[in-house]
């Protein structure tokens, strides 16, 4: 199994029941899982404008999930 640590921002924490914004959530995924699989687990649709960053880089939905990775998922932004 792959284990990843995830933090969610904006309205996205509502996707995970009991989500603790300070701790985030740890998920286990099947070996070979891709970002799209992770998104599906969290109820984030393929056409939804949520950005998934893994290890400081924006991930594509077909990127493989790295075991032990820290991911941050947030709504799309364009600056202030």
């Amino acid at each position, binding site marked *: 199994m792959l284990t990843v640590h995830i933090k969610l921002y904006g309205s996205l924490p509502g996707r995970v029941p009991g989500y603790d914004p300070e701790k985030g959530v740890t998920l286990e995924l099947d070996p070979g899982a891709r970002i799209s699989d992770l998104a599906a687990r969290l109820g984030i649709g393929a056409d939804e404008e949520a950005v998934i960053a893994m290890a400081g880089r924006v991930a594509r939905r077909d990127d493989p999930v790295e075991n032990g990775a820290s991911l941050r998922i947030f709504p*799309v932004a364009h600056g202030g």
Partner: protein
Amino acid sequence: MKLIRIDMTRQQIREENVPEAYSGIGGRGLTALLIDAEVPARCDALGPENKLVFAPGLLSGTSLVNTSRISIGAKSPLTGTIKESNSGGKIAACLGKLGITAIVVEGRAPAGKLFVLTVDAQGKAALLDGTNYRGLRTYALCAKLLETHGAKNTIACIGPAGEAQMLSASIQTTDVDDRPCRAAGRGGLGAVMGAKGLKAVVVSTEGRSPDEMADPETFKEQAKLFAQELRNNPFTSKVLPRYGTASTMAAVNALGAFPSYNATKGVFDGWEKINGDALAKTITARGGQAQHMGCAQCIVQCSNVFVDEKGRYVTSSLEYETLWSMGGMLGIDDLDTIARLDYLCDDIGLDTINTGVAVAVAMDAGYKPFGDREAAIQMVEEVARGTEMGRLIGNGPDAVGKHFNHHRVPTVKGQSIAAYDPRGMQGNGVTYATSPMGADHTAGNMLGLYLGKKLDPLAPEGQVDGSRKVQIGMAAMDCTGMCILAGMGMATPAATEAMFKMIGAKLGKPFSAADYAGMGMRVLKVEREFNRKAGLTSQDDRLPRFFREEPLPPHNKVFLVSDEDLDKLHNF
């Protein structure tokens, strides 16, 4: 379609029809054309030869939503370049509804004199003695002005920093709740206004004589369509109203490009205490307004009203860039302190970005430790008191860096960078280096391209082409009066087409995508030509050396775009 010229030297006012050379353009485009044509490029920015131009956008005053951006332009005393800084609130819409294309403030009032300019509901301007307002901070000033001239007015004004002609002085505009909390912050234009002897511009909100629309039916139809596109866009309809511009903090920290502790780290340790989520939660729990309409005709409502633990007003609106400059850059992860600093800057009349970075440079140089909340507040308060340290802070990061002989000063052409580090977002570095405005994120922010995986933010390839395209688009948008955030609604082809049709309906001639890009290119060329005449060369289109020498954690990259490539940006 009229210009109002204010001769501060003789206190004379003259109205004229908009000359052909300045017609068909508004906002930043108009300020650029006028300044380039009428201001000697090598003049003293704080002298009588400079001109201060207030120009609403081409579409300000129309029925189109989110078009109340006022462009204020002059030669900048901070950067030595041509400058446009724009602000929200109500004044652009009000000037548009009065059929005023621009107010041009010329000359310089006699020594010791201070004036207030009023524009009534018929569009008639008057210059009144304002000596009794000397030294007032902006909140107290605006309360008095509205008491004197009536509540149905909106204001652009300066605080003590502008009167003292400090290089980070802003021009504040009142929001829909009549608070002077909107700012044309960048470039020290408040100092130009102070040098002219003008304390405030008071404009009636009851104007009913906008310029005629060539094709009102098409405009109305397309304006309705554009508004619907904004309501359908998740960023403008969900993210911004709930979390404001602070929502950007998650993205930039996740990318490791959030310049912190005076640009020595790319992730701020305490960013989750001051991000959009924390801000909305805090404001809501205290009974403030996490969603607020700050500007006229705004349907996005990204503003907020921050209150203290007892529910008392502290400031509006707490924005991403200020959360960075007064937060991450100073190592301060306390919203109450940042809100206080934001209020102080608005009240004293200071650019929060340049001021926060000036404090950051002082802390980095060892004057006070990072994270010292009280020291940060004191340093900003000292600006209003005019102490030696206050004058350094008020004159910006370069002044502080020189004083302490400190090398790490994140400015271009004297103006501080914003909340995107050039080493973590290389294209923003290109924009900082090459914009005619000096370092300015609104001139060409690349964040959307990086989040959309259109470009690798850490690689040098493609950044110049990307920045050029965004800079041209922003220069065009800054002519329209459209808010940069609502402008993101132009992401869809339907909204983009609606924008072109509306400009065409206003001007009475077909207006295409090529015309829109052409407008942006024309503005950039004029601005760059002014800068050339002012003595700037390609050697001024460079980032400070430390960005190339000091890697930024966590990616440990330096700025990689070559000088040769930077010099290609203006090849169009």
